């Protein structure tokens, strides 16, 4: 045998690799709760326009309380940017919506599926919006004074998403893991932190192995309703863990030990709140109708439409309150709590590779996020 295990005299032993770094979340849950509750009320009185500022505040809270290697991130986006992005998107989308509506009506007369191409073009627009919205958020994310940024093309991404979407459709969902891996690879390879380039190490086969049996059992969940939240929570936890494990930025890598049952409680709490709020809404409607009847405003008779206006107004207000209360519940459990749970089990390896990164890249506009709002496709 040779003596390779002997180090030459005078050389330093190779230092052991640094232990992985944890990601700490220092946010106060009650502060977040008050913020989203107040935000929902302001949304109610501003016809929803406050949402741009609320979304910004939510991100500022989550980002600035998340510390990697002792330094917290910062979100530098502002509500005004989102509003302007939304208005721009609206100016582009409203004429398209109108044209879609009119052409759709005209074409349906002759052929049942004539508006399908238009539906597909909206899907393409939605995928474009997802990519551009992500770019906006990343360029507003700063850590240690250096920004994240993105290159790549929103339309190239949209084309990929469409092609993979077709394959998923044809394989009844079986191709979903490979679609997710391919799209995530595209997004991460066009993600940069200063002069470090991102990558995605997860592959479709790995995701498939983690979740194929859920795909197989999903018809059962459709038949037995109470199983569906378990299945969905199980799927989401597996998806998150797979996604987090694949993230690479330069030499920095991430690993996650997220338990498969991490989200069961969260989804059931959302369902519990949903049932409770629906019951309250039902009682409110019954109460309003009863009060109006007692006050001598029956919703029948010759001018029934005029007489039913008070009831309609009260119903709309009640409905908006219900929708906003549900928003609070979803933001608490599905944004804040999922964020915290995902971070709790996260480890960052070789953070030293990001110790001296040079800043690069330009800011992106919020137009993409505006499209995402206009088409109602929400990213994280």
């Amino acid at each position, binding site marked *: 045998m040779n003596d390779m295990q002997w180090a030459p005299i005078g050389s330093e032993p190779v230092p052991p690799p640094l232990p992985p770094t944890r990601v700490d979340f*220092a946010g106060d849950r009650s502060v977040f709760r008050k913020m989203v509750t107040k935000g929902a009320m302001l949304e109610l009185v501003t016809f929803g326009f406050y949402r741009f500022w609320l979304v910004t505040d939510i991100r500022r809270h989550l980002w600035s309380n998340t510390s990697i290697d*002792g330094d*917290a991130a910062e979100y*530098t986006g502002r509500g005004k940017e989102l509003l302007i992005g939304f208005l721009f998107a609206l100016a582009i989308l409203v004429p398209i919506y109108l044209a879609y509506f009119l052409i759709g009506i005209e074409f349906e007369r002759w052929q049942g599926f004539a508006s399908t191409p238009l539906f597909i073009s909206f899907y393409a627009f939605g995928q474009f919006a997802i990519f551009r919205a992500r770019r906006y958020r990343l360029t507003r994310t700063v*850590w240690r004074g250096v920004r994240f940024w993105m290159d790549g093309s929103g339309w190239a991404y949209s084309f990929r998403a469409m092609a993979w979407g077709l394959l998923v459709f044809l394989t009844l969902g079986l191709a979903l893991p490979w679609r997710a891996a391919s799209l995530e690879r595209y997004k991460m390879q066009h993600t940069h932190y200063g002069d470090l380039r991102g990558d995605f190490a997860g592959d479709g086969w790995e995701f498939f192995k983690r979740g194929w049996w859920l795909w197989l059992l999903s018809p059962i969940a459709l038949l037995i309703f109470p199983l569906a939240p378990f299945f969905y929570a199980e799927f989401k936890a597996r998806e998150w863990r797979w996604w987090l494990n694949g993230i690479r930025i330069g030499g920095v890598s991430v690993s996650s030990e997220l338990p498969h049952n991490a989200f069961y409680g969260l989804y059931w709490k959302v369902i519990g709140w949903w049932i409770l709020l629906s019951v309250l809404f039902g009682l409110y409607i019954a109460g309003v109708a009863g009060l109006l009847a007692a006050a001598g405003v029956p919703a029948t008779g010759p001018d029934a439409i005029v007489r039913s206006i008070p009831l309609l107004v009260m119903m709309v207000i009640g409905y908006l309150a219900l929708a906003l209360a549900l928003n609070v519940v979803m933001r608490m459990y599905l944004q804040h709590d999922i964020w915290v749970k995902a971070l709790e089990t996260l480890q960052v390896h070789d953070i030293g590779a990001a110790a001296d*990164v*040079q800043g690069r890249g330009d800011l992106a506009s919020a137009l993409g996020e505006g499209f995402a709002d206009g088409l109602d496709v929400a990213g994280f």
Partner: protein
Amino acid sequence: MTDTSVEAAAEAAKPTIFFDGVSSRRRQVALTLGDALVIAEEGGAPVSWAYDDIRRADSPAGVLRLASTSAPPLDGSRSATSRWPRR
């Protein structure tokens, strides 16, 4: 490897950390309040921030983080961050 020793010291004394917005390097600095806020790193040229340009930036509880609007404009208005423990 030198990073870890700086980190250890950081925990003990809670020093002021400065990011110049050009690089992600953590710089341990001393602050002096004069005509402007002077940020001095040992062995480096001091940076001064006019008080009018200083803004509060988002930070976790227990940390005060400031940014200057006149710092090298790599990402628009803010690029340099300094922080020290809040009293």
